[in-house]
């Protein structure tokens, strides 16, 4: 496939998302409690999530963005498979308190219990996916907004060390089914990472083997 065609395809993937996310909502959410309750209800009903994703990395030092794409799977409880497919292969599996990372021919397994950094990473990822992160007022200052299509939540880390890494985390929820449609991680100097989720499927049968390390 010609490079030009790849870029066009990427644009079509991102364009629908851009139409939905034209601007960050600035209208304060009227019913925060209602939203959080709906999120809990949704979370209880959803056992699996499958989705494609496109990741856009913006570095202020560059004039152009860095794009990658892949596939994401989630299965209760706390089984996560995050796989980059283009332009390179990189796989993270989180399951049963262990993290497995595979890149090219290298693969390594870590025990989350003995690694604080991975515990935090798992807490963050699964918190974003399940919405639990919104309850974490100890670690984040949370603000809620909405527009016609989306709910939008802004999380600002409280800890100074975390702030050095991430200024703000923005999570967009589809207003209809309350699934996460976008996560943006804002860093210093205008750098950010934006992940858009598309082609989502809920409660499909995902075999547990997808989250094994073999």
């Amino acid at each position, binding site marked *: 496939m010609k*490079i030009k065609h790849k870029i066009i395809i990427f644009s079509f993937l991102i364009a629908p998302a851009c139409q939905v996310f034209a601007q960050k909502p600035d209208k304060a959410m009227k019913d925060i409690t209602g939203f959080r309750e709906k999120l809990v209800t949704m979370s209880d009903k959803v056992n699996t999530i499958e989705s494609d994703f496109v990741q856009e990395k913006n*570095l202020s*030092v560059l004039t152009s963005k860095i794009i990658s794409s892949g596939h994401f799977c989630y299965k209760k409880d706390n089984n996560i498979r995050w796989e980059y497919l283009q332009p390179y292969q990189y796989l993270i599996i989180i399951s049963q308190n262990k993290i497995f990372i595979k*890149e090219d021919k290298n693969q390594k397994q870590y025990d989350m219990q003995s690694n604080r950094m991975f515990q935090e990473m798992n807490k963050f990822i699964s918190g974003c996916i399940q919405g639990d992160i919104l309850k974490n007022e100890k670690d984040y200052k949370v603000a809620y907004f909405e527009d016609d299509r989306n709910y939008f939540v802004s999380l600002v880390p409280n800890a100074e*060390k975390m702030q050095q*890494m991430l200024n703000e985390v923005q999570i967009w929820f589809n207003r209809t089914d309350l699934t996460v449609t976008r996560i943006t991680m804002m860093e*210093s100097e205008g750098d950010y990472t934006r992940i858009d989720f598309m082609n989502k499927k809920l409660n499909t049968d995902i075999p547990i083997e997808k989250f094994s390390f073999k």
Partner: protein
Amino acid sequence: MAGRVYTFALLPLLLFFSNGCSVAIFNDYHRLPDYKGNTPVSWFQSDTAHSLFNTKIDLMKNHFSGLMVIKPLAGASYRVVFITEVGLKIFDLEFFPDREVKLHYIMDVMNRKALIKTLSNDISLLLLNGLTGQPKVMSKKNSPGAIFRYRYKGKKNYVHLKEKHAMPFYVKQTSCLSNKVRVNLYGKPGSGLDSVKIKHYNLRLSLDLYRIKENQYVVE
């Protein structure tokens, strides 16, 4: 008695050579006084282009992987940013030809003065940053091309060029006695750098960089 004194004096030298240290004294380089060919030019010297590399850093038992962005800036300086595949920054450094490296950001787990200094040194070699002054031009037996020796902060940096090429294929840094680090650069001057391998002689630290073709990855 004199014989015992000499033995004691030679003992440390014997130990030094036998302990596995990579020795820089006998490097087999010879002066090339009438050299009139190319002088070293950085692979990254450019007005606007930037380079992306799939990068792996192995430090002792730790392994870091991600993308390294190298961007030339005005005034012959460079910005080098290393990010994880997930997009989080690991470090962000700015290199200047005439002053110390500026640290914009580094992940807490890597925030050690000695490590920052070592990484900055290694990347400087890759960029040929800070190698100013008049180098000594040398050659090596059975090796075509020229070798340029720059002295910088008490170390010697040997930049190897192939015949008719200005971009280096090999850079070695030594102290007075021992080899410190070597950089192998693979690529063609017309099409750019493909990959880089940086390896320390006396430290468990290596960096492997593999160029990502720009068009397949970056959207304007």
